[in-house]
């Protein structure tokens, strides 16, 4: 094995050797530098491998003496890992900046090499003074690198950096001197063993050492200088500062923390928390990419600092948490800076250019998701463990703040991602990609996935099989060059395979999961069939759709809360991309993501709390929760309700569903929303029996009823067909929430019947309307009309869909209504029930508007030659219609097994069956009999009319009585726009956008707060220095009190 000391010797030696090179051979110099860094990396990584395999950590003593008489280096597992990371970043960074370095000259190359070498020493050294020296070396090297771009801004930034680090270093040195005075050694281990705090004045030494290292980590608010550095320096340098330097400094803090006591850990964690939240809050107002990344970096460092501060509480989980989050940050931030450097655009809105290179868009998305902590990235597992441990320790405030900070970070990162995916852009991609600038981010992109997989292997009770699904999705992504039809077939096959694998087992074991699997996966297959209607490649569609379905399948399969949350987040990510694919979906995608994230954090917190109580992450253990049940139940309910879009949390839905592509709308409406329902059912099965939970459920019931009312009312006033259906989904999910909240046999039966029905008819309606929209090229109903003659297939589908949705017998929608009445009276929830009933009638308004405005009335000029909907849409639609018809004709086929299933949890007050006749506690209903009676009657009456008027003359659309005139234009004859004006006048106040206003105000406040706080950073170096000093004084004051 090569001694770690050679990492230094290689670095230093090469740096000296470079000096002998000819001035003109800069290219050779850079290559040499890269070789040197590669060698360093090889050494450290070989150590890492060896140590990982179980070798002992070694100490390297220089000059043949032992400490305190000499400098010693340690190569342990942590050191090896971090130094490998730093060397890797250094190598790739050097590669990335190949041209820059070459053009700047040998000095820059030497500085770069020294920078990397210095960081290595900082990691390895165990000598405090040596640490100080190399910190100085690195900071000077950094300053040198910053001013590589020789413009005013970067020189200013470099200067500010020098001042700040100078002060910090001075204090650090003082601290070391004090420490040496008390402990008699410069060796860190000796210092920490000597218990400095026991000496009078020793605490000052600790203060000085710790505070200076903390300051190096750029804590909020004493970090103005750091922000300027990120903004002004070359992105390649910023990447290194953010990834490598920060990693090293973090390790320094880690190394030095043993000299302090528990009190100090608390202070550190508080400082970190303030930094994390504050910096992410101020990030909201940023418009420049690099400064934004700076805020994000600082925020992440704050989080890491918090974690370090929590080390005494986290116990043996600490390393796992810290390393996963550190690695996520390291890979993602370096990658993001590199991409920023490639793009050469600092305005966030200009990042739309990135679309021109899909590979980079994918990388960008990967890094953003890994920063926020989505699966399958390492930070997901880290954050999960962190939350679990925090709640186990009862640190609820910290937990809440961490989630808040993450949420704030999510806001700006996803906004940015949204710009990149959807922002309008007219500019063209103006430069060539150089291979040396492409490799580093790509490599890091791959690494972040590998790291994710690797971290998952450490998680308890986590089924690694799920990564097979992800690998499959990756393959689909790699096959993106294939035509859409091929990928479609592959996707359908994969879903079919999964259903074939999952369904038989579930049928016998778990009816609930069986039904939801049917909805998720079979529904998925049906909607995929519609995808055949699309020509071309449909780039990026299939991986994300499959990602969503994978998430859904994992939710079904999940046996632990971790798996459940994993699936939940995958589904969220997949659906986010699906939604944002739509036209004009940028804002809707963002609001979907934000609500989903907030919901997911609520779920995460609740899982944490439950873990704290039951010490188990089995899903079934939720049932054992006793103490915090109100909080846990509410948090979980809120989390799931963000998906079901209940009142107050619904504002993301209409736009997201309306703007989505024609076959995506049913995916996200008929299928995705059911994930929330499934979650709620799991929740209520586990906790429903508790009286506390019942109290919350009562509120949920009201919420569901109001959601139903407001959703339907709003739907009645829409002009956009898909938006109308979206509001209708909101209200239908309101019904389901209401029925679930009843927590009785009939209530759950209602909810299940509604879930199945809503899946059936909303798929039919969304698919049909989507297909119609594809043909006619507009969402607006008043621009359509009279399409029944051109599109009989679509008309029949919509007709059946709306009859079922309205709950008119004999179709299956009535089953839900009938059960609903019995359930409501049985539960004594009369007034809520009446509200739901009222909203059910309001459904007629929008259903009529939908079918009338689109298919009846007057056909427009430009639609005269429109053809019927694509056969690929018709196939799934008619399969669903057959399903609906079977359900309508023989409701007992579905209701009987449902009854049996629900009897497990609510044994009383079910239906009793006598052939086709169902008897509930209050009423009775024979679905089959009604169907037959109505069928015979209808045919008889039709026959009668045919007999009487079979010779009717077919006339044109203008052959109407028009007060003795004739209509002039179909546009002016088709009554559709604002058709319920009178209704709006009477009841429109109920749907005034109060809730949207509420959220708008919230976001305004957050932004003004960020704007106000951002003014702290005046850009003045002296002010920044004052902040640094004030920070130290604040620490001192805290310490002495």
């Amino acid at each position: 094995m090569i001694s770690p000391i050679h990492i230094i010797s290689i670095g230093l030696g090469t740096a000296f050797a470079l000096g002998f090179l000819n001035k003109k051979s800069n290219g050779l110099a850079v290559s040499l530098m890269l070789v040197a860094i590669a060698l360093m990396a090889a050494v450290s990584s070989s150590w890492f491998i060896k140590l990982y395999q179980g070798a002992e950590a070694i100490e390297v003593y220089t000059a043949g003496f032992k400490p305190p008489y000499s400098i010693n280096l340690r190569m342990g597992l942590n050191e090896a890992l971090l130094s490998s990371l730093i060397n890797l970043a250094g190598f790739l960074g050097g590669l990335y900046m190949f041209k820059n370095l070459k053009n700047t000259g040998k000095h820059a190359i030497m500085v770069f090499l020294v920078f990397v070498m210095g960081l290595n020493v900082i990691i390895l050294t165990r000598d405090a003074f040596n640490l100080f020296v190399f910190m100085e070396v690195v900071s000077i090297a950094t300053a040198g690198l910053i001013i590589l771009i020789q413009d005013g801004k970067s020189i200013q930034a470099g200067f500010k950096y020098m001042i700040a680090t100078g002060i910090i270093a001075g204090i650090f040195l003082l601290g070391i001197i004090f420490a040496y005075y008390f402990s008699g050694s410069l060796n860190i281990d000796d210092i920490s063993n000597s218990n400095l705090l026991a000496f009078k004045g020793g605490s000052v030494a600790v203060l000085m050492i710790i505070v200076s290292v903390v300051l190096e980590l750029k804590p909020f608010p004493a970090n103005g200088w750091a922000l300027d550095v990120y903004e002004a320096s070359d992105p390649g340098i910023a990447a290194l500062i953010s990834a490598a330097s920060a990693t090293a400094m973090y390790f320094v803090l880690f190394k030095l923390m043993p000299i302090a006591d528990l009190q100090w850990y608390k202070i550190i964690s508080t400082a970190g928390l303030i930094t994390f939240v504050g910096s992410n809050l101020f990030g909201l107002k940023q418009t420049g990419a690099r400064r934004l990344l700076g805020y994000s970096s600082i925020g992440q460092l704050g989080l890491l600092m918090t974690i370090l501060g929590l080390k005494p509480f986290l116990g043996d989980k600490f390393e796992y948490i810290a390393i996963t989050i550190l690695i996520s940050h390291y890979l993602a931030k370096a990658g993001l800076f590199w991409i920023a450097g490639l793009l050469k655009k600092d305005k966030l809105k200009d990042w739309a250019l990135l679309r021109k290179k899909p590979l980079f868009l994918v990388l960008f998305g990967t890094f953003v998701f890994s920063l926020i902590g989505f699966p399958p990235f390492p930070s997901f597992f880290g954050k999960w463990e962190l939350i679990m441990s925090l709640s186990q320790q009862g640190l609820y405030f910290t937990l809440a703040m961490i989630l808040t900070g993450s949420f704030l970070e999510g806001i700006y990162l996803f906004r940015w991602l949204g710009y990149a995916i959807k922002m309008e852009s007219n500019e063209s991609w103006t430069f060539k990609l150089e291979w040396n600038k492409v490799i580093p981010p790509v490599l890091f992109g791959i690494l972040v996935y590998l790291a994710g997989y690797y971290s998952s292997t450490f998680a308890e009770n986590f089924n690694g099989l799920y990564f097979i699904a992800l690998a499959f999705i990756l393959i689909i992504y790699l096959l993106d060059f294939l035509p859409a039809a091929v990928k479609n077939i592959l996707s359908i096959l994969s879903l079919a395979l999964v259903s074939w694998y999952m369904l038989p087992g579930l049928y016998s074991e778990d009816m609930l999961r069986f039904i939801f699997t049917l909805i998720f996966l079979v529904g998925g297959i049906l909607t995929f069939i519609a995808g055949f209607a699309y020509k071309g490649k449909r780039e990026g569609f299939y991986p994300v759709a499959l990602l969503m379905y994978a998430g859904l399948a994992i939710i079904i399969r999940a046996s632990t809360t971790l798996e459940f949350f994993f699936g939940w987040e995958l589904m969220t990510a997949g659906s986010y991309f699906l939604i944002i694919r739509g036209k004009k979906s940028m804002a809707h995608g963002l609001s979907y993501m934000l609500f989903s994230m907030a919901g997911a954090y609520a779920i995460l917190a609740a899982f944490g709390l439950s873990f704290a109580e039951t010490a188990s992450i089995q899903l079934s253990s939720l049932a054992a929760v006793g103490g915090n049940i109100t909080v846990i139940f509410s948090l979980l309910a809120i989390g799931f309700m963000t998906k079901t879009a209940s009142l107050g949390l619904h504002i993301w839905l209409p736009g997201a569903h309306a703007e989505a592509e024609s076959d995506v709308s049913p995916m996200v409406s008929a299928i995705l929303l059911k994930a929330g329902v499934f979650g709620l059912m799991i929740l209520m099965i586990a906790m429903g029996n508790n009286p506390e939970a019942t109290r919350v459920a009562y509120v949920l019931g009201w919420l569901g009823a109001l959601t139903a009312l407001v959703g339907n009312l709003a739907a009645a006033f829409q002009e956009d067909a898909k938006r109308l259906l979206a509001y209708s989904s909101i209200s239908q999910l309101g019904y389901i929430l209401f029925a679930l909240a009843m927590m009785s046999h009939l209530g759950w039966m209602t909810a299940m019947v509604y879930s199945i029905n809503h899946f059936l008819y909303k798929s039919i309606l969304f698919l049909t309307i989507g297909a119609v929209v594809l043909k006619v090229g507009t969402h607006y109903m008043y621009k359509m009309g009279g399409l029944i003659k051109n599109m009989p297939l679509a008309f029949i589908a919509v007709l059946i869909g709306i009859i079922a949705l309205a709950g008119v017998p004999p179709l299956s929608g009535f089953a839900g209504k009938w059960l609903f009445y019995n359930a409501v009276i049985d539960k004594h929830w009369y007034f809520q029930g009446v509200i739901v009933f009222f909203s059910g009638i309001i459904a007629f308004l929008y259903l009529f508007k939908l079918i009338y405005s689109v298919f009846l009335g007057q056909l427009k000029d430009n639609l005269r030659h429109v053809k019927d909907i694509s056969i690929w849409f018709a196939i799934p639609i008619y399969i669903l219609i057959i399903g609906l018809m079977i359900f309508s004709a023989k409701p007992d086929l579905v209701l009987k097994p449902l009854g049996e299933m629900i009897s497990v949890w609510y044994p009383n007050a079910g239906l009793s069956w006598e052939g086709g006749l169902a008897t509930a506690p209050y009423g009775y209903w024979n679905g089959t009999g009604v169907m037959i009676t109505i069928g015979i009657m209808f045919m008889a009456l039709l026959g009668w009319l045919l007999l009487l008027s079979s010779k009717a003359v077919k006339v044109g659309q203008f052959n109407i009585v028009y007060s003795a005139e004739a209509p002039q234009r179909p546009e002016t004859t088709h009554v559709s726009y604002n058709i319920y004006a009178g209704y709006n006048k009477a009841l429109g106040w109920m749907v005034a956008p109060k809730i949207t206003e509420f959220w708008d105000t919230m976001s305004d406040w957050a932004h003004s707060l960020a704007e106000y706080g951002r003014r702290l950073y005046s850009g003045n170096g002296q002010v920044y220095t004052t902040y640094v000093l004030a920070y130290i004084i604040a620490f001192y004051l805290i310490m002495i009190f």
Partner: protein
Amino acid sequence: MSETKNNNKFENPHYAKREVTGPDGKQFIVDPIKDYFSDERPKVYEPNSIPVVEKFLNWARAESLWVLGFGTGCGSIEIPPLMTPRFDAFRFGIQSRPTPRQSNVFIISGYLAVKTLKRVIRSYEQMPSPKYVLALGSCTINGGMYFDSYNTINRLDHYIPVDVYVAGCMPRPEALLAAFNRLKELIKEGKGEKANEYAANFDWYKENQKKIIKDWNMPDYNW
């Protein structure tokens, strides 16, 4: 949407042929008169082949006369009194309907300008067969005091078939009631077949109509 010019001097621009672009980008011509209206000709409807049934039906038709609420001239002021307690036409099975689709009797109440005639023809053709026309006043017989006007027709029966004329200027409601009674007699005798007459002599009627309605911008028969 671009409009193509037509050489017809009086063509309504809304009914001119126009070129439109479909949602798929293909362009095609829309000819409103052809595309938006039915061009079917009226039919002669044979009475029921069983005389007793036809007699029964005629009785029902005669006793249930639904009048189109369309006042074409000054005489329409005489129609509302018909429904008042003094004359109470309801007791004869007469009531007014607001839409030609549901009416059987068209009262042409006095002078008819050419402009109104066009609307009258349209409404008349929209009424379901069998249908009856009552013509009030001298104006419908020979033009009355407007016999030499440049835009008032002189003889209604050249444009639509008339079942009963009521002379006078204006005829009083009593005269109208008498006319209704006469109409009932005619229907019961099986002579209320003027709608078939119109269909049978359709070309002649159209020729007369088109002679004076120069801006003819509707299909030949308004269903």
